[in-house]
């Protein structure tokens, strides 16, 4: 087992790299499809990391969690979004963004560096192989929040939320790998319900408001602009 550890640790490092890269990808892509694809990739990196930590730290519960996450995040959620959000949304290629992409990436870089500094405040990972998870997860959280802030379309905003949650779990799995199974199971189901409800809300928004460019929703303001 001990000879296996360095291999597992470097594989986990690879997963962390993919995770961070897809967080950047979410921010840089101009296409709705691309957003979903990068979310899939990020979720797969998360599943890989959970699986590796499960083996490396001998937490069999986590294998079940990895399997559940695998079914829900990369498979069920994109399927649900396709089902409930109208097809034409996915065919629209360009996504409006408040900030242009090069500047967004610069801010994202700054956020990632900040995450490395902030990670010191968080408790360290439970085992040495998860060390990289804490700063990368925190960076995923911050980048997700940033994606949410700059995107003006409904689906990319929703995916921004999922990216925050993925970041939380990516760091969390290393900080507390022995979280009760019931709780671990509840998290992905929660995301599934969110995808379902927000998917329906997106549809209603399009029907009622005529656009899913939620950044343009500003009839409710202080001073009674209604």
């Amino acid at each position, binding site marked *: 087992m001990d000879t296996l550890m360095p291999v597992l640790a470097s594989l986990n490092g690879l997963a962390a790299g993919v995770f961070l890269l897809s967080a950047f990808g979410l921010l840089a892509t101009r296409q709705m499809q691309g957003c979903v694809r990068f979310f899939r990739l990020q979720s797969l990196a998360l599943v890989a990391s959970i699986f590796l930590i499960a083996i490396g730290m001998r937490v069999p519960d986590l294998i079940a969690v990895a399997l559940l996450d695998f079914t829900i995040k990369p498979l069920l959620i994109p399927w649900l979004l396709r089902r409930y959000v109208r097809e034409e949304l996915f065919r629209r290629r360009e996504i409006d963004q408040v900030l242009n992409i090069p500047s967004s990436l610069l801010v994202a870089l700054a956020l990632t560096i900040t995450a490395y500094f902030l990670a010191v405040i968080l*408790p360290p990972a439970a085992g040495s192989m998860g060390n990289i998870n804490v700063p990368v997860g925190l960076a995923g959280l911050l980048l997700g929040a940033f994606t949410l802030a700059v995107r003006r379309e409904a689906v990319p905003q929703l995916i921004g939320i999922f990216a925050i949650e993925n970041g939380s779990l990516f760091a969390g*799995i290393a*900080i507390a790998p022995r979280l009760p199974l019931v709780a671990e199971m509840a998290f992905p189901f929660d995301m599934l319900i969110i995808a379902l*409800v*927000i998917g329906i809300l997106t549809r209603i928004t399009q029907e*009622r408001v005529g656009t899913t460019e939620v950044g343009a929703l500003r*009839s*409710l303001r202080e*001073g009674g602009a209604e």
Partner: protein
Amino acid sequence: MTLFVILALPLVAALVSSLPLGRRVAPATTLLAAVGAVLISGRAALTVAAGAQVVGVAGWIELDGLGALILLLVAVVGMTAALFSWGYVAREKDSRHLRRYYSNYNLFVFAMLAVPMLVEPALVWTAVELTTIFGIYLVAFDNTPEAVEAAWKYSILTIMGGAMALLGFIVLFRATRFGDAPFTWRGLVTLAPKVSSGVLESAFLLILVGFGAKAGLVPLHTWLPDAHSQAPSPVCALLSGVKTTVVLYVILRMLPILNASGRIDVDRWAIVVGLISVGIAAFLILQVTDYKRLFAFSTVEHMGIILTAAGLGGAAAHYGAVYQILNHSLTKSFCFFAAGTTMLTVDTRQIADVRGLIRTSPVAGTALLFGGIAIAGAPPLAVFLSEFSILRSGIAGQHYVAIGLLAAFIVVAFFGILHHLNRMTFGQAEPVPGDAAPVKLPLSSVLTLIIAAAPIVILGVYMPPPLHRLLQMAAEGLAR
């Protein structure tokens, strides 16, 4: 067992409401389940107040003083709002839409009832997330572009908050590695002195930021006035009266844990964040043009007051905080019932469009004015007593700056609320265009107003001994 029955009631009601059984079945079942929940949680609260244990599954589902208080409040507002829904939502013609309203209503209440019972923090997070998710449909119920916009802002900001708080809860679990105690609120308090302060502090900050967004604390409060003004009035009563309180309750649960560690000055965080919310909300109240937004900002103000009071520390301030929780929930839900009745009468949300309400509709006018006076904190009503006890305990604890600011903000909010409501209720009523007959208010609305007003008046002059005991136990839950 008792606790399981309380949880089962809204679930069964949600199931029955979703079946196509006729227009009356869903509201009747919902009301019946809500009354049942009030009776059973009232009995559970009495048991807790008498010093006995109420346990569902040890280590997972238990009820202590603080939990019992919140549970009781959710049940009571859940009942009054169900009664108010009866006449209010009946305007909706599409009975499928109506059934979905009631099934979501029951699920929403179910999730809120679960939060104070659960003692395992990770499950508490899940239950709080569920309250948010089930609330989305209710906020969007009116299906106008504005309601959909409000629902969108509500869901994005509060779910984002939840995702951030998630990391806080996972970090919190790390505390169990420092000793041998279960991962429960009480277990964490006993563990706290041994846990490194980094774990507790980072967990607390993540939870404060994340759940602060859900509780409507400034600066992540922007969704709250939108959602609380666009949702149907009974839903506003639930959102403002108990939903925000339930989330704030989770933040309050963190205070004794951090205080027990003895190395972190968490009270200062609570006071600063609380005062900022009170201050910003007080000045935003002055410039509202929509009376439902007025009450929504007042909710932000009261969340701040409660958090500040909890941060002042000491038994008296903690008692003031839980007392304020009780009075705010009861009074704010009444305010939204009054606002809903006003909406039914005048069919506008704009303050400027309403004049002489007390002449056009004596019931709505009186209710609105009474609600305003009560929530602003005028004596001898309930909110005055709790705000006064908070100010007094703060002075006794020598927090002069904080209390000075708090008192000033409360006074600003007081005048803001009464200024707006005064313009609406008195003055010359504008002549009704055409000769439309005065709107006849549904009996259920009037009944709700009477039932909801009763505790506000009674608690102003008389505190039943078991309730006093329950508040004391809840305050002890904040200390430790």
